[in-house]
């Protein structure tokens, strides 16, 4: 999990769920709206909202702390298995 910048990983895009927080995206990627309009990232690494209450979606603005969002940082091994238990 922590070894995200191993050599074989270089050049890839990684998406890391942080415990009780956003998805951190690193690497060479772009963000677009549904109709293909580019969304300026503003930085190389971004935090994407996964609690749903950010006022600057798709980016995180830290509000998950106020609403007490809970979600694991680890991802269970079954594909699609999410350890998240949103609490609003």
């Amino acid at each position, binding site marked *: 999990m*922590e070894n995200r*910048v191993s050599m074989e990983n270089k050049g890839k895009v990684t998406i890391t769920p*942080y*415990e*009780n*927080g*956003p998805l*951190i995206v690193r690497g060479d990627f772009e963000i677009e709206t549904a109709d293909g309009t580019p969304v300026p990232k*503003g*930085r*190389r*690494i*971004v*935090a994407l909202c996964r609690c749903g209450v950010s*006022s*600057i979606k798709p*980016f*995180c*603005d*830290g*509000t998950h*702390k*106020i609403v007490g969002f809970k979600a694991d*940082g680890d991802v269970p091994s079954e594909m699609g298995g999410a350890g998240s238990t949103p609490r609003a």
Partner: protein
Amino acid sequence: MTTVDEAVEIRTLSPSIAPRGTLSAALLTLLSDEPSDAVDSSDLMVLAHAAVRSTPSVLRDEDIQLSLFLLYGLHYGSLPGVSDNWEWQTGLIDVRQVLERAFESKLREVVPVPELPLPTRSAVARALGELTSAESGPSLSRYMAKKATDEHLHEFLIQRSIYTLREADPHSWAIPRLTGRPKAAIVEIQSDEYGAGREPQMHSTIFANTMRSLGLSTSYGHYVDDVPAITLASLNVMSFFGLNRRLRGAIVGHLAAFEMTSSIPNMMYGNGFRRLGYDATVTAYFDEHVAADAVHEQIAANDLAGSLAEDEPALLPDIFFGASACLVVDGLASAHMLESWTAGVTSLRRPRVGSLGGSMDDEALPHGESSFHGE
């Protein structure tokens, strides 16, 4: 209002910085010349010992905090007019250590360290999250969003400029003092702070744009005389932690707490400026920090502080000491502003000259064109 020893002659520092007592007066006099081969700093040592012996509070002592600010300034090169040759003059290092011992002793006394978690990445991140989300009294950011006047906004930028025109520099001292995962993590954060290779995007540059838009000077040191000891202490804490390798846990904890208490307040600061009609040129700094620090806080808590605790469990207490010191000292600096404003007085040490008059050396530059902000 403030006690400045006006009898002391002070010479050529530019911009000139006024002494706030006998120690800073002697230091400023010394620094206005080139160091000679036979610098005698024994008088300075006597004054330093006397200052720490007699002060009721190192954190709020104008003379001691200005002296620390000046001594750390030698390492940043942030004191215009002072010779670079002073940096490693051993007498000044001795004086600094006298002041630092008193500073640390006071910090260890007043900074509460929470119950320590296990030294694992996720336990440390979780505990830092709890520490930094604890409610601690009235909020400067809420006041800024809802009530601050235009004059308060100007004062806020002046108070913050002591650190923010050098934003990220104090924590960068930690980079060569760390290895492995924590080093990679802090570089990831600091790179963003420094604009990821794009100078106009450096946070200190964006902040300078905001100051310039409000008619304020962006020359580093221009406002030193205006800010109280507690504002200098806020920067001095970072410099102290950053410049002492044994305290690398504390500087890491400080950065984590700093980043973890940034996104939401910055949104509210931005709202305060928007409420008074300022446009995106002015709020860009705050808007940037909402998104940037939402990234940084995750990296700082997990990859930086959490990994450091795993790699060096002996540093765990200092990680939390540093984090808590950030909250306490910056809390005092914020409380000073809030208490001054709610009492209807300035938070500065002297009334501010009108923002549009005066001798702003660089206010004529168009917005965003110049990134000049320091020496």
